[in-house]
């Protein structure tokens, strides 16, 4: 009797070992990172594979069709193991049950020791964490400006608050013909205006979770933007195109005096108008009354449909660890989301080069990355409705108060419970 048992035990052990040694192939999807960052991604994958023999990573860079491709792959039984999403998309995917709770794959203590608390919060839905925070950016990270246009407009002091910035918009346009800046009014697939409310210390939701961005103060803030738009102080295209694109194009043509945002705008200006890039001054960005920053971030998520969640979690944690986030920040001026980044020597270098200066100013500020509002359920419909109402106010079809009242009513009627 002993012999068969021993044979069975031996077989079980052998099979178990074989299973443990079974090579695993992970599918890794990034979003709009190829071909510009091919070297960085490939070298990081190589380092991961070296550190984890038996795991190979197959990398795909997805662009426009990321979500559709993901849904198709789930349908066909070949879901990717690690995907790169942003805050909003992570919330939507998690709300619909597409993602694994990261806390079940990596101990919470490790997560909280690695990433800023706000970064973890950005990727949390319903009390669970659904993403490993990756690189980020700050909407009010830095202010870069054209000193010649400031001089022509008689501006001797850079704006320090949003209120000063709104006043400056008139001065610069009236005296130079150039726009002062291009605010994000109606970016597709998100709700820029909610960030403005948050920055001014105005609430987005009330205590019960209902939309509440229609007080008289909210309306007064929107009205300021409406007045600027109607007065021709904001480029018309800002209601149709992404503000960042309009701003970088016009800045390079000396038609916009300043850009509030991340250092990535400087990379574009350097390519488009090197002379103006050399002159460009970089300083801290003006903040709203709340004195807070807003911003966005990317993460790496593990889909529920992944067949290798443990290995996928390893890859996601590896890509988003401090060393690899800092290495990415050396390639492109992104803001790391790891706690250790704030003391990194990279962000203390300073210097006179605009990009280096901007990177130094924002690079260690990952703890401030916060969109200012949690994505509601059914967010695509709700964002569209809010943007439509903001547009109606800007084009004079509704008063600011009515536009916000209508949006709040729609939100509260259509947020899925």
């Amino acid at each position: 009797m002993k012999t068969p048992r021993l044979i069975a035990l031996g077989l079980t052990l052998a099979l178990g070992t074989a299973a443990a040694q079974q090579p695993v192939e992970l599918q890794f999807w990034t979003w709009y990172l190829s071909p510009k960052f091919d070297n960085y991604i490939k070298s990081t994958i190589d380092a991961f594979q070296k550190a984890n023999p038996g795991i190979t990573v197959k990398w795909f860079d997805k662009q426009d069709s990321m979500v559709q491709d993901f849904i198709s792959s789930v349908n066909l039984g070949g879901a990717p193991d690690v995907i790169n999403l942003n805050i909003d998309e992570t919330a939507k995917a998690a709300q619909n049950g597409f993602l694994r709770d990261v806390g079940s794959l990596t101990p919470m203590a490790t997560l909280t020791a690695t990433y800023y608390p706000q970064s973890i919060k950005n990727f949390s839905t319903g009390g669970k964490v659904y993403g490993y925070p990756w690189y980020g950016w700050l909407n009010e990270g830095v202010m870069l400006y054209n000193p010649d246009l400031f001089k022509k407009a008689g501006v001797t002091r850079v704006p320090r608050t949003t209120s000063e910035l709104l006043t400056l918009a008139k001065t610069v346009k009236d005296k130079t013909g150039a726009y002062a800046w291009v605010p994000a009014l109606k970016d597709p697939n998100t709700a820029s205006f909610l960030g403005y409310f948050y920055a001014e210390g105005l609430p987005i939701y009330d205590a019960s979770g209902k939309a509440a961005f229609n007080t008289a103060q909210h309306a007064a803030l929107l009205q300021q933007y409406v007045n600027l738009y109607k007065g021709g102080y904001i480029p018309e295209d800002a209601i149709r195109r992404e503000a960042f694109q309009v701003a970088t194009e016009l800045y390079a043509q000396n038609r916009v005096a300043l850009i509030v945002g991340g250092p990535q705008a400087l990379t574009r200006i350097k390519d488009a108008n090197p002379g103006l890039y050399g002159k460009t001054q970089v300083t801290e960005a003006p903040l709203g009354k709340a004195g807070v920053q807003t911003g966005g971030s990317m993460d790496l998520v593990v889909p529920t449909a992944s067949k290798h969640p443990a290995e996928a979690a390893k890859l996601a944690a590896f890509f988003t660890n401090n060393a690899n986030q800092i290495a990415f920040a050396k390639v492109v001026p992104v803001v790391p989301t790891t706690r250790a980044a704030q003391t990194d020597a990279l962000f203390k270098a300073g210097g006179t080069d605009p990009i280096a200066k901007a990177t130094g100013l924002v690079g260690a500020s990952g703890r401030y990355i916060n969109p200012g509002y949690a994505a509601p359920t059914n967010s695509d419909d709700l964002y569209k409705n809010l943007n439509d109402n903001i547009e109606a106010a800007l084009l004079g079809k509704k008063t600011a108060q009515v536009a916000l009242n209508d949006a709040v009513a729609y939100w509260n009627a259509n947020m899925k419970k």
Partner: protein
Amino acid sequence: MRASWRDTLLSYAFLAPAIILLGLFTFYPLAYGTFLGFTQYDGARFAQGLGPKWVGLDNFRALIADPLFLTSLWNSVRYLLVVPLLQLASLAVAVLVNRELPAMPFFRAAYYVPVITTITATAVMWDWIYNKEGTLNWVLSGLHLLPQGAAFGWLNNEQTAFWAVMLVTFWRGFGYYMVLYLAGLQSIPAELEEAARLDGASSWQRFWRITVPMMRPTILLCSLLSTIAALRVLEEPLVLTQGGPLNSTYTALMYVYSKAFQGFNFDYGLASAAGLVVAVVALLLSLANFRLFRDSTGEQA
């Protein structure tokens, strides 16, 4: 008898690949899409591995109650205004380039270039034209048709954006229909024209008495194709205006696209129902086209 059976089988064998492909890629999606229109099938059900849930006419009720859908459908129906313009212009130009002159191959190719230009390049180019500081305002100001300081972004204004986008559709589609008409014109027997010319018919008479009647099948085909294309216009408003301003360029297909493919909240049920409504409108308009192009004897074109 045996040979006849073999022939029959052989015929079906030849037909089989086409029937299978049509079944897989046309009839099955059509039937499944129709079924989905009567179901609830969204991101949450999909992620949980649940299939579509029958909800009867709920999606259609939701569509009727959604002002955005009604606006988008109205915009799509209004978009049909491009059809007669497109057909008249492409037929007229096809007649013009249907001559054996040395420069004609160049013109035929030049008119076809917009058809094969990518939508991204098209969007960038028309953006330059329609911009507040763009070439259209510059030309109009130069001709004193636009007063000083009255320049505006043609795509940022709800009065003009719809027509501006439609012009881009016209520009993109024009060459395609011109080539179809050209093929139709070249199939008209030369003897007919010759005989009419000998009988003393003017070019105008030849056009109305010979060209138009002989071209009736091509006209019907082009009208049907452009009617369906106009109803499902998506790319131009999507890249030029994203449906704005104030949803003035938001079309029914944009609605379907946003419901079916936007984010993880997608709603295949509602999107399929909206697609069905558009398909029914297209079907009705196609029937109207058939009636319109019936000749005076009642014979179908």
